[in-house]
């Protein structure tokens, strides 16, 4: 029994970490080009509802998932329009995006609540690997979107660290004026990456409505978007560390469920709090590393700053 509970907890850590991994990956894409989107909770909800409607109306899960990504991307492009093109304050625009997403998703999804997903995201057993004792069932019998989420930080890492394009993209977040001087299309890429990131965030929402809950409920993300923001900081803006962060945050939530079902005497609030404590510690350690450089941090240097040519 004890083994099974642990197995179940680890399995749930991955399941609960997956939407966080999508959201954090999407947020990281935006932050790497210098745009801090605190409204991703709203983008997630748009993804959740767009995915569900797409699936429900077409009966096809692929169309559902694509709708979620498109919905998230289009909704984020509104934010990109405000912050990148019109250079609005990112915090203010992010709040607006959050509230807009909250209301809009509830309104659009009103007639779709209390419907079960007819064609949800399916489990994929990875041949051979899922037969490995103990680990097989934990790691290799997941919804297929779990594998997709796991791969996305690797893809992002590869693009950012191993390609010419990625070098240009990182430069936009560090010093857009310098990137501009060398001929990088700063505004275009900022816009595209914020939107692209929104697509990933949308997938995070759809993972809930089409994967785990298999139904759409207003406000169903219940703060996961905000945790996604914390994971980006926890990871020190390094793509591969997002995986650690997402599964750690997911794991603590899973532990919380396990603690409740097994009647352990650990206060739920304590477990919920731990990852944020971890985030604070990571930020402190990072600040200590940069103590000799006032104003510097692990974050992209131009994060949150609008770019004006020649300014």
């Amino acid at each position, binding site marked *: 029994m004890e083994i099974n509970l642990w197995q179940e907890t680890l399995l749930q850590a991955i399941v609960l970490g997956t939407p966080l991994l999508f959201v954090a990956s999407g947020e990281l894409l935006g932050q790497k080009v210098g745009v801090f989107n605190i409204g991703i909770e709203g983008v997630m909800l748009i993804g959740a509802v767009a995915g569900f409607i797409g699936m429900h109306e077409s009966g096809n899960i692929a169309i559902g998932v694509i709708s979620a990504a498109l919905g998230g991307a289009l909704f984020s492009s509104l934010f990109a329009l405000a912050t990148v093109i019109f250079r609005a304050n990112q915090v203010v625009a992010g709040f607006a995006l959050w509230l807009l997403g909250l209301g809009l998703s509830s309104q659009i999804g009103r007639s779709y609540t209390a419907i079960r997903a007819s064609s949800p995201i399916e489990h994929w057993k990875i041949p051979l690997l899922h037969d490995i004792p103990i680990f097989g069932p934990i790691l290799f019998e997941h919804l297929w979107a779990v594998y997709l989420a796991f791969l996305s930080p690797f893809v992002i890492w590869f693009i950012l*660290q*191993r*390609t*010419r*394009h990625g*070098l*240009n993209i*990182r*430069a936009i977040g*560090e*010093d857009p*004026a*310098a*990137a*501009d*001087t*060398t*001929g*990088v*299309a700063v505004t275009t890429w900022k816009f595209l990456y914020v939107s692209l990131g929104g697509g990933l965030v949308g997938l995070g929402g759809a993972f809930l409505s089409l994967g785990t809950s298999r139904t759409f409920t207003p406000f169903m993300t219940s703060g996961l978007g905000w945790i996604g923001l914390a994971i980006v900081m926890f990871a020190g803006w390094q793509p591969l560390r997002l995986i650690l962060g997402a599964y750690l945050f997911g794991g603590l939530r899973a532990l919380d469920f396990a603690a409740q079902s097994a009647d352990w005497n650990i206060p739920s609030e304590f477990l919920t709090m731990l990852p944020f404590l971890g985030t604070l510690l990571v930020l402190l350690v990072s600040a200590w590393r940069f103590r*000799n*450089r006032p104003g*510097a941090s692990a974050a992209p*240097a131009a994060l949150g700053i609008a770019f004006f*040519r*020649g300014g």
Partner: protein
Amino acid sequence: MIVEDSAPRSAIVPLMEIREVTKRFGSLIAVDRVDLDIHPGEVHAILGENGAGKTTLMNLLAGLLKPDSGQISLDGSEVTISSPRKALELGIGIVHQHFRLVENFTAAENLHLGWNETPRLAGNKDLVDRTHSLAKQFDLDVEPNARIWQMSVGEQQRVAILRTLSRGARILILDEPTAVLTPTEADRLFEMLRGLAIGSNRGVIFISHKLDEVISVSDRVTVLRAGSRVSTLKTVDCNQELLAKMMIGRHLNTQPAPPSAALGPAVLVGKGISARNDRGVPALEDLDIELRSGEIVGVAGVAGNGQRELSEVLTGLRPVDSGQIFMGDQELTGAYPVEFLRAGIGHIPEDRYSSGLVTSESIDHNAVLRAFRDPPIRRGLFLSPAAIKSYARQLVDAVKISIRDLGSSVRTLSGGNAQRLLTGREIAAASKALVAVHPTRGLDVGAAEAVRQVLLKARDSGVGILLISEDLAELLSLSDRIVVIFQGRLTGEFNKYEYDVNTLGLLMGGHPAEIG
């Protein structure tokens, strides 16, 4: 009388032709109907004071600004340089005065940023290898893995120059490229530029306000004044006096400044100082320095030999690993920068924009940065706007800059005026000692002279000044004593009138020299 060389060489199509180009900023005409031809194979100097329109003209060619009127042609056909990318495509490469390098990136990353010859798939190792071979090809000493923020300004410039050269620009524009180089490095650069231009289809535009450089590097020179072209001449027909007159309308003062009148007791003293640089590598090793009241001590050295660390240690900005710092009898080792300030030490930092002034703030707020803690500006818990204004007005008048609106941003000041403001502020703070790092770098002749006069006046009123500069002529002219810094140690000391430029050069280069 000199004949203007404006007649085009009929046989050659100019590489670049600029006709009647004009750029206005509000009511200010920054570039006023300027004509310019760049021939293939020539180094063309553009000479002018700060505010003469050199940088604006360059930004027009770089695609950073759009001209209000006029034409720019390349190879005989008119072009519109709509963006920096377009400029690069057209073969116009620029080494900016502020290098526009990404601080957190390595040299290798900066070199390959936004470059279509960077392999599509390239890990750090590929970038480093490519950087090594490019650095070798152009004979520039660049450490591929070092990050820009860890480098001295001189090292950063080498990265910027290497980047532009690597991209194979047909028209290479250098904006005051020698301001941070040692004489040897500058000579090497001139040689390289000449090599790049001669017999090629490339043209080099060399923007400068240093007359000797213009004369030694260029084939032709165009003099700008107040946004207009004064004249274009063959360099062989020019001399420094002529160019200076065209540029500023008066003659240069190249005389050494009078020596210190009254040498007082020691003020700022460092004993056995060791400190590390930003990379954690020892930058100062067991260094002793003594600054006495009423003297200017010049620190000569090649960029990156501990000058920056020395200036930061002596103003409390950088901790020491060992050694002691005194102001008179008061020990300041380990004290906060504000205690150094209260002890009467002023500081003109290396980069006036990143550490000297708050560019987003107004002129008057910048003026009171050293004085706002005390009455009359501070009134209890509050600051008095009236006192700020009057303090700022006094300061601005004292350094002779005419500013109508003290509330406007420091960014609206020209480089020379910003430096005068900074100098004035720090001299007001420096009742005992002043640490001045490259105080006249990037300034035109007039502004530099004004800053020098202010320094001399402070010295004569009893302030001890540590002058860190890479401009040897300036050091030779102002200093009462010159020390040479090499790899974090002082390797030589000379008194006024006893300098030997050759010995100085050898010591700066790290050669042990026999001192007579």
